[in-house]
């Protein structure tokens, strides 16, 4: 923790806006080029395959000797039914078996430096059945600051889209497709088998990629298009350059229609299938809003281009450096804003993933949690509260969506733990996305919006183009708030305790003292969950007076005794709703008088619904 603790500048405690201006200094040139890739790839649409040559220039920026190289070969996650990925997903495994739909990445030749000796036979898979990680022992250790050139020839068999790779008809999405080095950090390689809940983790570098494919294809890719040449044989070659990034992906489809827009001198290119062009305006608008918001709060977007691609991948969207993919649907009515929300989410990932390349396999909450938190803020700012679904008076907001998922799996797993240790995919999602987002909103409640904006701005500025950890984030939060926040982060990030505070009872006794009416009140509060967080209590009296009390929340129950000249109207714990981790808001308040009208309204609504249901059922 102390090793990576940033040296904060005097501007630290200035308002968030000024800090975000300072944060704007991050540029892609700042990225430490550890692993740079030159790749020539040819797409063979008929065979659904790729053949490629790759040159990696790897520099040992650590203080250790490196005697082995670790490569990720993600397409091998779908090589056969015995891989770690497919063993975790019974349904997908059966689907692949039924449809005989498999993928693979085969290294045909690998040579180091100027040597011509093919070392492909010396590649050792990490496990017998899983070829998603292979290691190559080096004959001669790589010394600190020394560089090594690696030449690889490989072939990829593409599946009909599984997870994030493959084709559907003429639509190709080529992500996680090339042999990629892991991250050497703290004297060991961080290179993980591809599993349901582990996402790629890689070093920054420059990517130069030449894509050759039939000339009728339209290509969307990370980085900048440098040149395009006609090969005269019905194919064309496009050259891309993506500086200071940690991944490269591309998509191709003959029918893509391109829409462009600009915000803050950033060109947004949207590639849509013809069926989905009705959504162009909505998606571009959401992307622009998200870019503007993040640029002003988290630091300037360091690239001059953002590519958005409509693909058929599993899940709704995928983040890649300078490129995002979203699954667009034709549905023409505007009952929900899921596509906008996904667009915003993936754009925010350009910061919390693209620039702040934390270890997604071991600390996924750092990019997914922070992204979900900022996404909800942006969605509510653009469209208003309860705007994710807005249909016939029924409103559902981004935070409510997070809450719904969080409550489903509130105590199964902690937020911060390696991806493979989560109980299920749902628990992974609930913890790293939803619970983390609500935890950050809770932190915002305790520290204030301004402090939270400062934390995010400084965190972005200090750790851009690096691999920040949970402790880096905690140290920034503690520096900004100027307090030890272990009371918050320890249970919230690393525990599975549930938070639930309640007003359990209000008792008042009326007495007369010297011709004055005096009420003796006894208010009982209870902690129903194991998580301990400080609680604010608001007491409202019938004459309009308000009284605030603090409770450290540590005891199982707490009693407040007080006297007043007026009866109590209502007692509320957490009146400003700072604590979004509380699993039951319904017991957070107690009124002296029953909420008869509201309950009557709710009950009669339900009664009428049941009556209507009976009317319908008995009609047949």
């Amino acid at each position: 923790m102390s090793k990576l603790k940033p040296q904060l500048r005097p501007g630290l405690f200035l308002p968030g806006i000024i800090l975000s201006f300072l944060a704007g200094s991050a540029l892609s040139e700042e990225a430490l080029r550890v692993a740079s890739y030159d790749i020539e790839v040819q797409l063979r649409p008929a065979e659904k395959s790729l053949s490629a040559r790759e040159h990696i220039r790897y520099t040992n920026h650590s203080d250790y000797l490196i005697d082995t190289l670790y490569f990720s070969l993600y397409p091998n996650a779908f090589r056969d039914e015995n891989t770690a990925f497919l063993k975790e997903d019974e349904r997908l495994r059966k689907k692949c078996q039924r449809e005989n739909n498999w993928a693979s990445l085969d290294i045909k030749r690998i040579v180091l430096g100027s040597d011509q000796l093919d070392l492909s036979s010396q590649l050792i898979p990490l496990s017998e059945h899983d070829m998603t990680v292979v290691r190559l022992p080096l004959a001669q250790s790589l010394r600190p600051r020394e560089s090594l050139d690696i030449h690889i020839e490989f072939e990829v068999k593409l599946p009909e889209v599984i997870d994030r790779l493959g084709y559907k008809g003429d639509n190709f999405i080529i992500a996680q497709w090339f042999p990629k080095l892991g991250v050497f950090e703290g004297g060991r390689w961080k290179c993980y088998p591809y599993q349901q809940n582990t996402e790629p983790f890689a070093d920054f570098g420059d990517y130069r990629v030449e894509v050759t494919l039939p000339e009728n294809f339209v290509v969307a890719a990370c980085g900048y298009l440098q040149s395009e040449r006609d090969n005269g044989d019905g194919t064309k070659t496009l050259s891309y350059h993506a500086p200071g990034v940690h991944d490269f992906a591309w998509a191709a489809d003959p029918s893509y229609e391109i829409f462009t827009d600009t915000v803050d001198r950033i060109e947004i290119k949207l590639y849509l299938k013809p069926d989905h062009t009705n959504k162009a305006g909505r998606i571009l608008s959401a992307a622009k809003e998200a870019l503007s918001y993040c640029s002003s709060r988290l630091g300037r977007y360091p690239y001059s281009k953002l590519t958005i691609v409509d693909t058929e991948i599993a899940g709704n969207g995928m983040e890649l450096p300078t490129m995002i993919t979203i699954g667009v649907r034709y549905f023409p009515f505007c009952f929900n804003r899921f596509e906008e929300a996904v667009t915003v989410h993936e754009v925010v990932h350009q910061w919390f993933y693209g620039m702040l390349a934390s270890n997604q396999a071991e600390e996924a909450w750092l990019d997914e949690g922070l992204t979900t938190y900022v996404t909800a803020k942006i969605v509510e700012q653009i469209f208003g509260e309860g705007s994710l679904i807005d249909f016939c008076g029924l409103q559902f907001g981004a935070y409510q969506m997070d809450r719904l998922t969080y409550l489903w799996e509130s105590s199964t797993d902690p937020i911060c733990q390696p991806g493979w240790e989560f109980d299920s995919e749902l628990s992974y999602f609930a913890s790293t996305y939803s619970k983390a987002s609500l935890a950050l909103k809770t932190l915002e409640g305790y520290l204030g919006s301004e402090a939270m904006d400062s934390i995010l701005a400084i965190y972005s500025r200090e750790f851009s183009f690096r691999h920040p950890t949970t402790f880096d984030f905690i140290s920034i939060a503690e520096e900004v708030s100027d307090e030890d926040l272990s009371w918050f982060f320890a249970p919230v990030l690393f525990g599975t305790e549930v938070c639930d505070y309640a007003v359990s009872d209000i008792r008042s006794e009326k007495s007369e003292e010297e011709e004055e009416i005096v009420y003796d009140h006894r208010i009982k509060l209870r902690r129903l969950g194991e998580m301990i967080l400080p609680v604010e209590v608001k007491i409202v009296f019938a004459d309009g007076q308000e009284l605030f009390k603090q409770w450290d929340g540590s005891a199982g129950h707490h009693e407040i005794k007080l006297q007043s000249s007026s009866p109590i109207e209502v007692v509320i714990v957490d009146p400003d709703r700072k604590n979004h981790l509380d699993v039951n808001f319904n017991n957070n308040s107690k009124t002296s008088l029953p909420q008869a009208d509201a309950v009557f309204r709710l009950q009669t609504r339900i009664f009428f619904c049941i009556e209507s249901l009976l009317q319908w059922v008995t009609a047949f």
Partner: protein
Amino acid sequence: MRTIDHFLKGLKNSLASWRLGIILFVFKFACALFLVIPLNALLSESFEHNLYASSFLTRLDLTLIIDFVQSNIQGLKVYLVFFLLALVAVVLLNIFLSGAIFRLLCDGFRRGYYSFTIGHFFHLSGRYLFRLSRLFLYSLLFYIVVIAFHLVFAELSKAIFGGFSASFRFVWIFVRLAITGFLAMLVVMTFDYARIHVVSVRHIKVKMTIKEAIVFVGRNFGGAVLLYLLLILGLAATVTIFWGLDRGLGLLGTSTIVLILTFLLQQTLSVVRSFYRLLIFSSQISFFDRNREVLPRFQREEEEESTEPI
């Protein structure tokens, strides 16, 4: 014009049979009350002294609902089982009552009067229970066929129109749903005529009744469909009017009196819908009597039928 004539005759008969309408309403009101009481106990516990519950006066606060569901998940699971079982019981009770209701509606329409005593009502209910229950099971079979048809049709559409534009496929989904809806309507309509047949002819097998009803609808397809569409249109108009009134009341605020008025409006709609069910039956009886060709072997049995109290 004839369609409107049947509609008006049905309206007259349903108003004249007001007791039956009240029975239908009270039956559904009582059943709904029975179903809602356990849920109301849970709701009261969560919201009676909950400050945030006041938001229910203006909107449905989903945060509170989500928390309510999560904190009462076990109780709600038990309630759901109770609800489903109770729903089956309500359907069976409805079949029991509908024999008498159909028969008395027929009598009212054909003879201009019907004899109503509690004993006679339950006698008729019991008399047709077995055949109407079997008819209900057959109707379920028909609905399953309609659903299966919809699924097969959806798969076929996917295979045939999969390559077409998204806008075409989107419109086609509505066309497909309309076709399924129309088929479901035909099933409802056919089984309504089958029920009329059951209460009109005493000794007839259920399968024969269904066959008769299918033949009847087939021979009078245009008129039967037109009448049913008119009835559906009338129902849609009625519901729309009440929806408008409900919205109008919502503009008056959330005072106790407005809430009570809203509840009364809802119950008025419930009463109207009960009468509308009678209107649908009565109009169909009118259409049935005008267009049917009675098989000679059933002629005598019908004439022997008595509706007088035993």
